[in-house]
């Protein structure tokens, strides 16, 4: 019983402060909009947004699922390519010197400039959105992955070398586990980015996903719908980030980063 109480108290200490902060923010927003008599088409009150959201929850969840799927697939694709690249680049300075500038070029290219071209190349389905999400998530995983794979304990590396361990064994027994804290740090950045990537992709074509809802409702000056979509997106982003934190805690039990002070 005491164990459950402690668990409950611990959970409360994580959830109550942000919930109160959010409640306070929404209250200030609501009071300000009403006191200043701000028109709905300029900035709607949270009560109006929540009414719109709950009236048509199915609509927002359905579009939210599309965006979530595209974001996750983009994240998986981007992270896989980045980790593969990081593996090769961590083993070869020549490859790093050759490929890293290209990766930086991809990173600094504005996604909004590429998105319309992807529509022309790949059509109006989910694929261009997944590609955009993967592009935006690629760089943090690449850089952190490379650092993590390189930054191994030299004593353990010497030991494995003295035991004639193969490159494959060193990779799976030492480099990959050592890179995990770096990778999770990158995932925490990349996961919300993947949602942004999917949304940007949806702005340019197609009629599915929260990005499409945002762009059309903006064109119609339908602010309650626009903000409802933003709230759902924020919810998706927060949920994904919490999942990454949770996974990090489970996977990196052995590492200092999982210990919360």
């Amino acid at each position, binding site marked *: 019983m005491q164990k459950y109480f402690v668990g409950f108290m611990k959970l409360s200490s994580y959830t109550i402060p942000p919930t109160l902060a959010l409640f306070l923010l929404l209250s200030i927003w609501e009071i300000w909009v009403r006191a200043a008599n701000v028109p709905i088409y300029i900035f709607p009150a949270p009560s109006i947004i929540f009414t719109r959201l709950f009236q048509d929850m199915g609509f927002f969840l359905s579009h939210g699922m599309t965006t979530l799927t595209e974001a996750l697939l983009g994240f998986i694709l981007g992270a896989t390519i980045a980790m593969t690249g990081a593996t090769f680049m961590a083993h070869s300075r020549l490859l790093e010197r050759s490929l890293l500038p290209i990766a930086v070029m991809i990173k600094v290219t504005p996604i909004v400039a590429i998105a319309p071209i992807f*529509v022309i190349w790949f059509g109006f389905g989910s694929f261009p959105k997944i590609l955009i999400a993967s592009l935006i998530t690629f760089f943090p995983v690449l850089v952190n992955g490379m650092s993590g794979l390189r930054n191994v304990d030299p004593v353990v590396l010497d030991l494995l070398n003295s035991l004639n361990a193969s490159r494959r064994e060193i990779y799976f027994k030492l480099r990959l586990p050592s890179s995990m804290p770096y990778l999770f740090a990158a995932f925490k950045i990349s996961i919300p980015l993947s949602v942004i990537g999917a949304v940007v992709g949806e702005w340019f074509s197609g009629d599915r996903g929260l990005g499409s809802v945002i762009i*059309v409702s903006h064109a119609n*000056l339908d602010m309650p719908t626009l903000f409802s979509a933003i709230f759902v997106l924020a919810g998706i982003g927060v949920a994904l980030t919490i999942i990454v934190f949770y996974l990090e805690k489970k996977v990196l039990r052995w590492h200092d980063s999982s210990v919360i002070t």
Partner: protein
Amino acid sequence: MNAFRAVGNCNKAKLVIITFFSLIALLACGVMETSEPNNVTFMAGYKPQANLPFVATYVAQEKGYFKEHNLEVEILHTTSGDNIQLLMSGDVDITTSDATSVLKRRSDPGIPITAFALFGQKGQQGFLSLKSSDFNSPKDWEGKTFGYKFSQPPEYLAILENEKVDRTKIQEVRVGFDPRVLTEGQVDILAIFKSNEPDTVRNLGFEVDLWDPADFDVPTLGLTYVTRETDIESEVVEQFLKATMKALEFTIENRDEAIDIVMKYAPEEDRDHQKFMLNTEIDDAQSAITDMNGLGSMTSNQWESLYGHLIRYGALPKEFDIKSAFTIDVLDQVYKGNKLR
């Protein structure tokens, strides 16, 4: 007697001096009044380019017509489509909007804006297909893909109904604003602005067919000047319209010079494309109504036809009193017959 005369002369001299200074003071007040121009912020609803309502303001600014009407006009542009919100927040005094959008915004969320001049006697929107598609009529669109910008335009739905086209046989997809989806074969018919994409696609080396809703008896209207309903009777709106209508007449008579002025505001744009845009919009800005009542004119019948059409095709979320959406009163102050006052 002489003393009286002397006093009388002295009083006369005083009277002359007082009258003289009073006149100077009055004159100074008058000068001060006219030297205080009315500040107006105009926001064009898109980037700097040769859309006719934009050009009218550029020309009025450069030729000094705004100054003639005691206006100090700041010309702004937006690419984010926030001009109506900025109008209502008071950051902007006058902006542009196409007539359909005026009715949509009036319908929901009920934004109190009023159009006071109509440039496009025909709508801006049309549909484009490649000549190689060999479409003879909209009936040939069946089995093809149609790309639209935001939502299916009511003009498209009206054409399909008028021409008895089976809509279920057409794939419809939102494609945004890049016309290359047409040239690259992603779509077969593309919703476009008549004064823009036809020229762009031709410049890419493709022959095109333009489908104008007006040719299928679909009621459409183009760009308007709008302001807040509460400001519609202000003198500033009247003076603004006087200056821009004068500029519009100048533009039609001196197209090359008008394009020179446009290029000052849009130096990175292609001059020939701007010329195409201007010529197309000038053609669409003239009709029997403007011949009779002057450029920028409009009638209740035009607006009622458009309103009925939009209601019929579900483009307006709610019905409302259409009289609040436009006024011809300002035009009446500006024109006598079809001549500027």
